[in-house]
């Protein structure tokens, strides 16, 4: 555990006497390993360590009687602020939400969770089955809609037309939010990324949430950057946080896209969604 490792380093230093820049380097090395093991991207780790080093080399820390506490405080605060500072307050009901992301990240399940979440906040949600590719994807959303008593819009046409028609239908019948569940896609699949961009342009959803598996590794940076280039992301949803993945990909995503993490998924049931608390994730990343 990082706190213990840093404490051990400082106990050894205390016996020697004064704290030096070399000691700080040793501490930075431990932090680096911890963050890499937590799946924070190596470039993001490098930037993070530079920020920490800058703060740690200030006189107040070097001359402090409890430098390990000071350093740990710097690390924790820097991590929390990079993850998004304070908790985002409720923005009210969006009219259209588009869920996007890699294959298997948890979009369809999250669509159901968001429907329940917004209905609790006086919404009248409509689920939209825009995944025309995956076997039984539409059925999956229908079974979900049925289990939570939320209507599902489906149509035998292409994903972009489904989205456009669903939004039109929602306007007529007064549904809000419209939750568009899209196909999982690779960020390097030009055709599918093009389809994504066209869907966005045709429907202009208020919220575009990138749904990311909490256990994502170094690739989080590529994923975040690529999706952010194609559509303007308004939020990231980190799923499967009920496991033991440390969630370093959250920091990577946030650092590289600047987009806030808005929710975390904490299970397979439709009430298993929570707001994102940066300080909790910071502790988790630090192990």
């Amino acid at each position: 555990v990082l706190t213990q490792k840093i404490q051990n380093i400082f106990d050894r230093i205390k016996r020697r006497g004064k704290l030096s820049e070399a000691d700080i380097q040793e501490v930075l090395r431990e932090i680096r390993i911890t963050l890499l093991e937590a799946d924070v991207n190596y470039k993001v780790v490098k930037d993070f360590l530079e920020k920490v080093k800058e703060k740690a080399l200030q006189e107040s820390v070097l001359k402090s009687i409890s430098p390990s506490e000071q350093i740990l405080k710097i690390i924790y605060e820097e991590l929390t602020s990079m993850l998004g500072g304070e908790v985002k307050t409720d923005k009210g009901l969006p009219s259209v939400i588009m869920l996007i992301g890699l294959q298997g990240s948890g979009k369809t399940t999250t669509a159901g969770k968001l429907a329940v979440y917004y209905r609790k906040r006086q919404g009248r949600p409509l689920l939209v089955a825009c995944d025309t590719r995956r076997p039984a994807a539409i059925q999956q959303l229908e079974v979900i809609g049925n289990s939570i008593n939320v209507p599902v819009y489906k149509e035998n046409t292409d994903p972009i037309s489904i989205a456009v028609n669903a939004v039109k239908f929602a306007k007529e019948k007064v549904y809000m939010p419209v939750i568009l569940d899209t196909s999982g896609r690779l960020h390097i699949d030009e055709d599918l990324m093009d389809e994504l961009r066209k869907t966005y342009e045709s429907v202009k959803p208020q919220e575009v949430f990138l749904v990311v598996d909490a256990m994502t590794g170094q690739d989080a940076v590529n994923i975040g950057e690529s999706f952010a280039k194609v559509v303007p992301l308004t939020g990231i949803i980190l799923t499967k946080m009920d496991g033991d993945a440390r969630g370093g990909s959250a920091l990577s995503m946030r650092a590289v896209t600047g987009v806030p993490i808005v929710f975390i998924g904490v299970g397979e049931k439709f009430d298993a969604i929570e707001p994102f608390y940066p300080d909790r994730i910071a502790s988790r990343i630090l192990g």
Partner: protein
Amino acid sequence: KRSFSNVSAEHLEELEIALLSADVGPKTTERLLEEVKTKWKLSPDERLSILLKNSITSLLPPSFNVIDRFLQGKWVILVIGVNGSGKTTTIGKLGKILRDRGKSVIFVAGDTFRAAAIEQLEIWGERVGIPVIKHREGADPGAVAFDGLKSAKARGIDIVIVDTAGRLHTKYNLMEELKKVKRVIEREREDYQLYTLLVIDATTGQNAINQARMFNESLNIDGIAITKLDGTAKGGVIISIASELKIPVVLVGVGEGVEDMQGFNSKEFVDALFW
């Protein structure tokens, strides 16, 4: 005289970045680079990248063709792994390969939990001409496995591939459920051999090691299928998994289509880490 530091510090950093960004993990990366430095002192004319590739390859179990193994005798293949890793899709692809090689295959719809999981497997069954044994959503997965085996034995089916619900390795009850499914299969399999296949998503980071450890502890994994290698993730975690648990990667998923599966080739895998 060439010293290690002036020839290779920069090159070593490049190699470190390649390994870290491939999800090899900091400790395994450090071990590998230390080994390369040691080997280089003994053979300073050898290229660093070659030494590194050899070190990685020596951590991986020897390659073999798992498909050839499945063509001998009768098999039950139990497919497990965390949520969304690609189990159901992998089963579709694997079934097609075995059927094309002349084997009779059935699928067992052991995911009785997730919405439309059975329907998803049925569509794959239709695509590749393989019958699916199923119960209703909510049925006991052990009971479906039992029926699957009963049907296979009655019809003299060569290969039974059992799909299971995705589950996080940290969930005690779900891991117990899976152990029970395996016990049912062990009890009923007669002359069928059992192969337990863990499916891991290539975009997974260091958590894949926990997954492999926990699933292995509960169920004894015979092999790993790594999926979604058609993305930009390199799947470097399997090096740590191989070195710690000695479990081989046997199959690789490279897309969502029925043809998008290959046998694991360690040379190609190691080369791709450095592209």
